[in-house]
């Protein structure tokens, strides 16, 4: 107890001492050696001390950078011999600055999240300060962005062993700056291309987190980007950083480079989920993704489900010619689809794909039949969606209404079995048009009244307008149950009128269970 107290006391006094020495250092050059003390104390094991050290260093170097004390004249470096004391001092300072950066970089990969964050912020602050007050005097036309320092930071962030996703999330505020974004993308591309870096799953995860943050801002064609963390380049200087097109280009190449790697399943899904929203709009030529998407689409299961969205955008907006799109889509309708996590997204997309009224009737009929078969095994929520989906299809395509109503009963078909063949891969050959939607009739006996009521609609002429099923897409079973129970109980809630004999043994099929112990 006493020891602990002593320790905390000592650390407290330490903190005070560090603060004091930082202040003294800034006030007078006499105390220059304090800087060395602080740097050594940065290696301390106590987080509190380290945090304070980082803060003090932040203050010190920010001031030094602002006052340009570390700035060496170009000439000075040449004449080594007669270096002034001033020059010596700034050289010394620069060396300490490099030390500090090294140590802070080390801290980024520390275990303590607050320490990580603080050191990252400090380093980025250094980047900003350096950008505003470059260490070396250069021409105004050049960009003053401290590329070397920045690459070092990114190198740490895109660690191969450590999941940095939370820290990268913190990084988001800096990505707003155009130059930061540009250099991030550039570094990413470089690292992805670099074969010496081992592309571990963690690394790819980090890269994905970083890429996810990237957003190329919307500006007019001839307008230059001007949100910079470093000094703004003069108007005459046209570098790659300032044009949107260049940024898009590098964005595209970084993404393509990234997608060439072998991704884990979860990462794959994440990529596919954001692809159409966060990536495609910023790419120069989204069609370049076609290969990736086609491959994913062919994988099957949830992956192809997710790839569907991106593929659709390519087909729809970028004129991609995709043969047998609908037959592939048709084969994706499997009983498992209603159990899938991405059910809502899938049905939403399928609805979009089948919006066109110019699709052939046989295709629609095949889809309707297949969906109705799925509904036979689906849980109530899924059945509701499917029924609504089928009704919408039939409203859109009046030719398909024979599925619900056939006037002259044709005798030539053998109706002991359903003419529709679910195992036929080609919707054209499935003979769906010769069938009827008996499955909907069956669902009229569904145990849930919502589904049953919905199925009962098939007995009457269809409505003229489609109804939106966006609401039921997201409905979970819990919501359904809550909806049922939240209804106000009326006065006379029906109860059984037969006195029970037993709780468990009352079940009719008594021979199935042996209740004796």
């Amino acid at each position: 107890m006493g020891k602990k107290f002593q320790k905390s006391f000592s650390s407290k006094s330490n903190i005070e001492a560090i603060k004091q020495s930082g202040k003294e250092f800034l006030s007078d050059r006499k105390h220059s050696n304090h800087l060395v003390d602080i740097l050594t104390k940065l290696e301390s094991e106590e987080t509190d001390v380290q945090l304070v050290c980082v803060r003090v260093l932040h203050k010190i170097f920010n001031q030094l950078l602002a006052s340009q004390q570390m700035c060496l004249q170009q000439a000075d470096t040449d004449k080594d011999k007669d270096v002034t004391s001033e020059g010596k001092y700034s050289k010394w300072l620069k060396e300490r600055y490099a030390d500090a950066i090294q140590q802070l970089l080390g801290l980024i990969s520390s275990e303590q999240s607050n320490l990580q964050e603080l050191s990252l912020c400090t380093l980025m602050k250094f980047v900003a300060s350096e950008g505003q007050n470059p260490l070396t005097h250069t021409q105004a036309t050049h960009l003053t962005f401290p590329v070397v320092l920045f690459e070092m930071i990114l190198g740490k962030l895109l660690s191969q062993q450590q999941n940095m996703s939370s820290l990268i999330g913190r990084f988001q505020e800096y990505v707003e700056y155009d130059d930061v974004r540009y250099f991030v993308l550039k570094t990413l591309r470089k690292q992805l291309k670099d074969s010496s870096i081992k592309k571990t799953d963690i690394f790819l995860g980090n890269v994905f987190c970083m890429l996810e943050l990237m957003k190329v801002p919307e500006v007019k064609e001839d307008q230059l980007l001007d949100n910079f963390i470093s000094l703004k380049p003069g108007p005459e200087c046209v570098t790659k950083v300032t044009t949107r097109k260049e940024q898009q280009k590098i964005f595209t190449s970084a993404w393509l480079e990234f997608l060439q790697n072998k991704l884990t399943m979860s990462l794959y899904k994440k990529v596919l989920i954001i692809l159409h929203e966060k990536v495609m709009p910023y790419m120069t030529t989204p069609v370049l993704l076609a290969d990736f998407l086609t491959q994913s689409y062919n994988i099957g299961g949830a992956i192809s489900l997710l790839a569907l969205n991106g593929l659709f955008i390519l087909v729809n907006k970028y004129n991609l010619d995709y043969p047998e799109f609908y037959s592939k889509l048709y084969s994706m309708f499997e009983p498992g689809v209603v159990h899938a996590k991405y059910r809502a997204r899938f049905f939403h997309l399928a609805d979009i794909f089948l919006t066109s009224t110019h699709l052939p009737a046989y295709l629609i009929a095949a889809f309707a039949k297949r969906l109705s078969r799925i509904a036979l095994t689906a849980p109530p929520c899924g059945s509701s969606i499917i029924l609504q989906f089928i009704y919408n299809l039939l409203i859109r395509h009046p030719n398909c209404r024979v599925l619900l109503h056939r006037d002259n009963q044709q005798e030539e078909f053998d109706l002991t079995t359903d003419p529709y063949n679910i195992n036929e891969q080609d919707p054209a050959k499935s003979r769906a048009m010769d069938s009827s939607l008996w499955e909907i009739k069956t669902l009229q006996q569904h145990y849930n009244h919502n589904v049953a009521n919905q199925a009962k609609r098939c007995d009457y002429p269809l409505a003229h307008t489609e109804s939106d099923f966006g609401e039921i897409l997201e409905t979970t079973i819990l919501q359904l149950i809550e909806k049922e129970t939240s209804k106000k109980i009326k006065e006379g809630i029906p109860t059984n009128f037969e006195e029970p004999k037993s709780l468990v043994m009352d079940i009719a099929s008594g021979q199935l269970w042996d209740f004796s112990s």
Partner: protein
Amino acid sequence: MGKNKKKKNAGHSLADAVRGVKKITQKKLNPFEVKFNKQKHNVLGKKMLKKDVGLPGVSKSKANKKRQETLLQEYKKRGKANLFVDRRLGETDPNLTIEDKMLQRYAAEKQKSHDRSTSRYSLNSGEELTHYGQSLSQLEKFEAPRHSDSEDEDEGRITGKMVAEEHFGGFLTQKEFMDRDSEKTWKERMEETIAKSKKAKYDRQVEKDKTIEVTDKLDSDWQELRMLIGGIKKQSKEVEKPKSDDYDVMVRELQFEITGKASDRMKTEEEIAKEEKERLDKLEADRRLRMKGISIETGAVQHRSADDLDDGMDYEGGDNTPGYVVYKDGKLVNSDDEDDDDDAAAEEEDDKDGDEGESDNEDAEAGEEDASDGDEEDEDSYDDIDSDDPDSGDDVNPKETLAKQSKILKPLDPKKKQEVIEKASKELPYVFKAPDSFEEFMRLIEGATSKDQVTIIERIRKCHHVSLAEGNKEKLKTFSSILLQYLGELAMQPKLDLDLIDSITRHIYSLNKQFPQFLGETMSAVLIECVEAFTSHAERHGGRGVFPTLDTVFYLRLIAVLYPTSDFQHHITTPAMLFMGTILAKSPVKNLTDVASGLYLCTVFLQYVSLSKRYIPELINFLRGILALGVSTKKRKADDVLPPFRPVGPGTDLLNVTKDDTRKTEVGPLKFQTIFCGEDMSEISKRPEQSIEIRLSAINTSLHLLEDCVEKYNDLESFREIFTPIYSLLKRLPVKFYPASMKEKCSKLVQTLDTRFTKPRQYLTMVKKKPQPLKTFEPKFDERFDARKKRAGTREENESQRLIHKHKKELKGAVREIRKDAQFLSRVQLKEKLDRDQERNEKVKAIHQMLASQEGDFKALKRKKNSL
């Protein structure tokens, strides 16, 4: 108008005057003046409306006349500030003669002078003096005064004593006030005073009445006496009736005597059974309607007689009825088996009498008071239970006597007393406080055997019967929710006490009859709790659920016991079914326990739809998955199973039997206790012998369930599509390792499916719409024609429409009137102008004439001159 009539009547005779009114109305119309609006269709029997016929000329002239009287007068008086009022008497009436006028004037003069003489200060005016609105002259009749006012007034006043005591804080009699009324407030004292004076008034009234009565009696006595004195004997008007003799009385009595009384016929056994059947039929019909989703508009809760419901109900199911609570004078005395019958008998008597009172004196005399009497709404009547043998002896149980003595007979010798106490301490207490919380209840039943627990629960219910005290309803409600909780608790015990559970179920059932609203809410809350536990588990495990523990299963089962599961939509059963569906659809089967509990859930679920035969996709999927588990992995196809089952992976051959097990000929049913609360199934599965048995039982159970499903879903249109995957799985089952009975079952199922698959079907057709009839031009006949326009809107709407219409009409009328006024005025003005012009013209003419004649004269004179 009235005046005119009079004037015209003046000339007629008196008889004419009497009939005058009629004569006027029979004024002759000039047929040329009458104008008819032309009718489009002439409808027979339709009255001519006012608007259809009129006298335009007459009404025009009438209007003109009215304008001349009003508007013209105003017009003439425009710009005039003063008014000349003629107040001369009789000058305005031209009919009066001069003599009459003079008479009037004289009268007026006299009146004036008289008024002047009777100034308000003159006392000797001829006015009559009155008292209470009656003339004094009339009052002075000297009739015998009934009472003296002066005396009354005196009495009505507050006595001097009271004044002295009460007025001014009673300072006159300070002392008395201090000692007597020191505690009383002012208000109380005032009330006292008022009461006193009221009482005095009442006393007076009574006395007065008495006096009047005495006076009257005296009067009548005097009359009689006077008659005696006068010797004038009046003949009594009343003729005394001859007294009827006994014989006549007897005859009359016999004549009107009722020979036989009509009484309520005793119902025969058959009739009672029939009635019961009818009642059940009605309930069943209601249930069917609800199953189809057609709501019954019953309004209030159906009343069921307490007798009806529990007739023949074997409540305790045997002789485990330790006792019933008995009361004397509101206090609980004793209970026992035998009492029970007495109670029942007593209650039956009560019911017959229609006596719904809380307690009966006779019962109390017998030392017993019925605990639960017929309440209006509650159907519980435990006392009826076991009342099958009505000839229960009057013999008193020794236990009962003891308990009775301990309460009633106070003086007991200490030895005996000790004995009683010892016995009593072994017995359960008879009065229980209704527990407020579950913990309290657990303390109550702590250590009690299950038999005693049932007794305790029973006694709690008895002691707090609704009819006994005010707050008992609430207490019982709390108690019912506690019982629910206890049921869940019992389910989690390592060893299931099914008897206790069953009797608690029955208690919950009858409490549910009593408080359907409350228990409904509680039950749905319990259900929601279970659902939330399930979903939160599923969320934590990536959407995969887990098969519920036994308490949830019991609650689900209890719902089926309490509520009709066949309803198309029900507040509690619908969510319960959704919940079961979710469990079956989301919980992966990992071991034999999962298989067994899933199968039990299926059994429960199938029981839910046993009457309504509704289709449950989840259940079929589950059974399909179970069958797939029984098929060896080599024969497995990818599309055999649906989530949550997996086609490949660990545990997918959980139920596969590879060894020849035909040695055993019979497969036992699954053991409920071992599954839910027995030893760990994973251990069992290690022991091959037992494991195989369980596997086979599971397969057997699912086959059985499938048979049930096939029967239920036979009529479904997609029967073939539903059962095709199962059919293919059945064929791949390793039947050769199964015992004979299972083999047979399997092949039978395959056969049934085979035959049912070929059922022919028909194309779907929509419900035919009724053809729209063509429009005909035949007249439409109204069955009940009342010649009134029917308005579609509500009363308010119609009223506002009517007002709007009226306003419009009035506005039009007003505008028309104004326009006519203007026309009238302009006509008058034109006439004035024409008159003026004419006058001027005449004047000019006259002047011209005069001038011309002058000129003529002058010329003539001139000519004369010239000629001269």
